[in-house]
């Protein structure tokens, strides 16, 4: 049994009276690539954003690399102290649909900002490592460019490199290619595929069924705030058990 990187138990999230996540259990194991799929509005983003506390859960517990981010005691959720939360969160990397690069910083500065400011690492060392990462995402010649001078695909690759620069235990992707043209989608997916081959632990919210089928080690179908189906991609897609998943796949493949 591989190391459990993230342990999620009975996670619940409501916005006011609207219960979006209704109790999800999940172990994210080392080297796993999990594809999160499901109809629009089913709570995929919300679930992902609870993992790094972009949203506060309303119930359940989350443990990241052995550190408890939050836990439920007597029906009340307790988060770790703020400083601890920041440390735990920095063990996860996040890639957003809209990239969210820092526009006033060059590509290289984007990559070294948090390692230097948050991890207090040696700047020279960070620069060397950042250049390695840029080479990896195919942007070695862009270190001095500003985000506004890059294509969407290039920006997203920088964003991936920025996440990796923190040496996170798990990378979270929220529809990383949804804002991109098809040609640019390919270059981003290729990078993610390479990461998967290197056994990077990843959770990817995606509508790219090809990616989910060929790259993911596990597919999770979320519907109505719970995990409806999960398992091997070929199994889940080839042999859907619930009517909802059949319906979902039919719409997608149309």
């Amino acid at each position: 049994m591989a190391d459990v990187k993230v342990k999620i138990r009975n996670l619940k999230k409501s916005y006011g009276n609207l219960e979006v996540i209704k109790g999800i259990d999940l172990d994210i194991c080392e080297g796993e690539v999990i594809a999160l799929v499901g109809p629009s509005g089913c709570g995929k983003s919300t679930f992902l954003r609870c993992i790094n506390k972009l949203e506060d859960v309303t119930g359940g517990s989350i443990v990241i690399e052995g550190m408890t981010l939050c836990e439920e005691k007597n029906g009340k959720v307790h988060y770790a102290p703020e400083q601890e939360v920041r440390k735990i969160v920095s063990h996860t990397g996040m890639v957003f649909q809209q990239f969210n690069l820092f526009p006033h910083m060059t590509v290289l500065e984007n990559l070294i900002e948090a390692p230097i400011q948050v991890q207090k690492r040696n700047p020279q060392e960070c620069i060397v490592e950042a250049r390695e990462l840029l080479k990896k995402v195919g942007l070695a010649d862009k270190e001095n460019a500003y985000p506004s001078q890059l294509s969407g695909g290039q920006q997203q690759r920088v964003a991936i490199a920025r996440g990796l620069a923190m040496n996170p235990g798990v990378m979270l992707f929220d529809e990383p290619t949804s804002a991109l043209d098809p040609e640019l989608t390919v270059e981003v997916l290729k990078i993610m595929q390479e990461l998967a081959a290197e056994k990077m632990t990843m959770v990817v919210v995606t509508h790219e069924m090809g990616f989910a089928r060929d790259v993911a080690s596990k597919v999770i179908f979320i519907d109505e705030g719970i995990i409806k189906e999960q398992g091997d991609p070929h199994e889940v897609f080839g042999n859907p058990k619930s009517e909802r998943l059949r319906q979902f796949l039919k719409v997608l493949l149309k």
Partner: protein
Amino acid sequence: MDYVIYIIPQMIAGIGVSLNIFVLTLLFAIPLGFLMALGRLSKIQPIRKAVEFYVWLMRGTPLMLQLFFFYFALPAVGILLSDFNAAIVAFVFNYSAYFCEIFRSGIGAIPKGQYEAAHTLGMSYTQTMRRIILPQVVRIVLPPVSNETITLVKDTSLVYVLAMNDLMRTTRNLVQRDFNMTPFLVAAAFYLFATFILTEIFNRIEKKYSKHVQQ
């Protein structure tokens, strides 16, 4: 020309007073305006409401009225300020309200995604503000701050009503004494020169903070 050289020393004294008001006002009003902008965006409602009220009050009444208030009304309730201090207090109170609104809209213009990205990288609130948000805000607020600053140069002449010997009053005294219009021209030249310098300074800062914006 001889006359100009003759009046220059007196006018410089006036310029000194105006410049003093200008510098002190900026020095206090900008940080104060910034803090109030944070208050205006605070999650704590009473703070938000208080700042909102303050801004409404300060922007909704004439600066001249505020000058009179601090000069005449405060001594009446036992708070004694020298005329110079009364002027500074009025200017700082008034201008900080305007700066507050400028900073508030500047901070509000930064997309939520910037805060989220910083959060996922483990940055603290202070780090996020200092390293990520404020450098972007500076670029956005520079043009309106530049405007306010240039307005302030000319607004300093309002202390005229408090019988302070700023550039404006000095000028008028000279005109009345010598029956010569030249001091007006010299004063105008000074205000124009100050505005020119400020415009240059702000252009430079703007350039520095706009490196990343695609031409």
